């Protein structure tokens, strides 16, 4: 009781209570005034919020690991959206405008070569060192990385045959996922030491399923759009990983404060957004309609299948990240690094690999957010910065460095934005979200769900 009294005796808290009451009353009034429209606004808010939540999730996992703001995230979101546009431009522009550019393909392939070499080296070097000479290993890794780069180049130069060129990737990914999932299930459900036979069976099942899904995809040209999602998310993630390994690692050794990293990544964002304008021209572009552009009517309000899908992806992404962070060894290491990177290094965690993976995952989330919002509205070069800021706001509102906070903040921000522009015009959307941010920072600086 005394707690409540002292809470109310604080003037800031009273203001906050009044504010919340006003907002709730306003929304309540709006709902009673026209329930149908309110439902429509709620749906819109949910769809927008899902995108914010996706960006905020990726942002949060990176921020809570390395504790600096990586502004490249804006570029990752834009890259995700523009990657889809790049691969599917023939559907949207009807082949009037040739987007495909050998230089761009080459650059991405080179990045993939670098990342692949690094990945092979870190994964295999110490295991194979005793059996092969350094030189042989280097040549082997180099050749494999070059093959990977060439493959990516082939995929990027033939966007019309995506469902054919991606068959090996689909096969490999499916087989790996089946294999890993099977092992995980076996280790958790039956016994911690799986017999060799089981592994062999898993490989067979995995390859079979992989081949099956590859055939399914090759048989349906409509899948090209969804495959392009995967490709552009992969590319945005790879660039993020390459930036971390090739740049941030060195920069963090010298950086005196997180602001140095912020300014440096600001430079990266500036460069990337300018490059996007150079390659794609500054005009807004449409993306093809996924799911045949279908929509559903629920209680008098419309919602596109795409929006439902976005909400689903956000929730699934949240659950997946939660599982990854809380239940797996990888997640425990990530949290250890977030708590204290030096200690994590001392106890023998290869922090570079773990953080690089986190950067990859984070950028994939940002790219997903970017491309899904691009499908919903349209894409333009400055969308990246705006999405980054919205994701940043969402994670601050929800409680920074906290996955639950990120998804909650994302949806809340989307809703508040939509209800905020009900009586204003739509162009005040960004203003509303920054006002929400400033109010939150003034009254609940730690956000809704503060990180423990």
């Amino acid at each position, binding site marked *: 009781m005394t707690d409540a009294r002292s809470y109310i005796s604080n003037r800031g808290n009273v203001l906050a209570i009044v504010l919340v009451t006003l907002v709730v009353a306003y929304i309540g009034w709006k709902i009673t005034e026209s329930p149908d429209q309110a439902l429509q606004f709620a749906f819109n808010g949910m769809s927008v919020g899902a995108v914010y939540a996706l960006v905020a999730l990726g942002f949060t996992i990176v921020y809570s690991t390395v504790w*600096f*703001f990586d502004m490249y995230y804006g570029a990752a979101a834009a890259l995700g959206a523009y990657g889809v546009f790049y691969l599917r431009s023939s559907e949207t522009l009807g082949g009037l405008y040739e987007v495909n550019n050998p230089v761009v393909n080459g650059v991405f392939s080179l990045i993939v070569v670098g990342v692949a070499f690094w990945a092979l080296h870190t994964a295999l070097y110490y295991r194979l060192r005793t059996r092969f000479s350094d030189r042989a290993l280097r040549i082997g890794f180099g050749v494999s990385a070059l093959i990977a780069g060439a493959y990516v180049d082939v995929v990027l130069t033939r966007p019309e045959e995506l469902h054919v060129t991606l068959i090996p990737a689909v096969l490999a990914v499916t087989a790996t996922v089946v294999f890993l999932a099977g092992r995980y299930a076996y280790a958790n459900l039956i016994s911690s030491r799986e017999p060799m036979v089981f592994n062999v069976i898993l490989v067979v099942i995995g390859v079979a399923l992989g081949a099956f899904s590859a055939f399914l995809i090759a048989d349906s040209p409509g899948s090209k759009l969804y495959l392009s999602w995967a490709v552009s998310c992969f590319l945005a993630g790879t660039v993020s990983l390459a930036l971390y390994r090739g*740049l941030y690692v*060195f*920069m963090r050794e*010298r*950086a*005196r*404060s*997180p*602001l*140095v*990293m*912020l*300014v*440096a990544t*600001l*430079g*990266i*964002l*500036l*460069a*990337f*957004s*300018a*490059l996007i*304008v*150079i390659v794609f021209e500054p005009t807004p572009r449409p993306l093809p309609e996924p799911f045949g552009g279908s929509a559903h009517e629920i209680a008098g309000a419309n919602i596109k299948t795409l929006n439902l899908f976005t909400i689903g992806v956000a929730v699934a992404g949240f659950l997946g990240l939660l599982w990854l962070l809380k239940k797996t060894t990888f997640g425990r290491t990530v949290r250890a690094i977030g708590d204290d990177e030096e200690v994590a290094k001392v106890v023998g965690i290869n922090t570079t690999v773990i953080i690089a993976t986190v950067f990859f995952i984070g950028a994939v989330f940002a790219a997903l957010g970017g491309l899904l919002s691009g499908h919903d509205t349209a894409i333009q070069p*400055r969308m990246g*910065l705006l999405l980054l*800021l919205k994701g*940043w*706001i969402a994670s*601050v509102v929800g409680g920074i460095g906290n996955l639950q906070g990120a998804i909650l903040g994302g949806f809340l921000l989307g809703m508040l934005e939509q209800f905020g522009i009900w009586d204003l*015009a739509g*162009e*005040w959307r*960004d*203003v509303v979200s*920054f*006002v929400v*941010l*400033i109010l939150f*920072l*003034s009254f609940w600086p730690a956000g809704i769900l503060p990180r423990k």
Partner: protein
Amino acid sequence: MNGNATTASPSLFERGMLMLREKGDLELYANVFVIGWAVIFTLWQGVGFAVTLGTVFCIWAILSVSLNLVVGYTGLLSVGHIGFFGIGAYGMAILTSDTSYELLRTESIPQFGLPFFAALPICVLAAGVAAVVVGVVFNRFRDDIYVLVSFGFAIIAFNVFLSWRALTRGAYGIPDVQRPQIGSWVADGEIEFLALCVVFLLIVVGISWFLVSSSFGRVLKAIREDEQVAQVFGYQTTYYKLAIWVISAMMAGLAGGLLGSFTTFVDPNSFILLESMLLVSIVILGGLASIRGSLLGALAFVLLEEGMRFITYLPSEFIGQVRQVVLGVMLVLLMLFRPQGLAGRYKL
């Protein structure tokens, strides 16, 4: 060749790194390079072009000096400074508008018809008043949250310029902004306007220099280093931060007023977030906590754009983008090797 000689003399790379870290050398080279470039440019393109360039430089220099007061001396990384610039420019455009071009309008805006020299102080004051409001709200934030909310200010300002059509005509912009006029003398020629801008630049640099070399400036640096300690030694740091924020905003408002009058056309696209980010990057590029550095940064920035116009195989619509790429890459390199910028005295 004996082995000792090769180990004793540093490699080219090491020498380069050494040069980058030692302040004096690089600063000197940068100065000589940029100013030499400016001179060559004038000789090459003729005085007329150099005058236009000089005016643009003056405006950007006022802006970057004013931002350096906040970012470099006080340590508040504000990315929203373009908002005050815009307030100045729109103030000038709205206040000096008269009835002569009413037919052009799609929407009517209030007509004040003030002369330039009456409007300019009002622009400065308007920016100052806006800065008081914004500063009171922003004062409690620090570090990366400060960056985020200052982004917010830039976006809010841009949206107001774009969407408050009754005052700003939205995306149409306001044409025919007045040129300075005293009695019958109109600074219509470029060279008169340049002279005016130089005078204002000198005033701004003078005020800035006076402030940062006073006790006040020292306290600002102390706040930048450790705000809490500055408080423990008896300084009410919120007032200091607010004061420098308002002064800086007023300078930006002045620059905005000059820009509005110089281009005689004001539209929201000059005040997008990106411009603000470019402004921050030229302040960091030139050097934090160094007025000379800001001048250098602004000069380099202006010359970079104009210089690229003469790279023949570069399409003209990409110049801005290429400049942005160059600035971005330079930011990354500076943060790696010289976190204080070219001529700076404060490492971020």
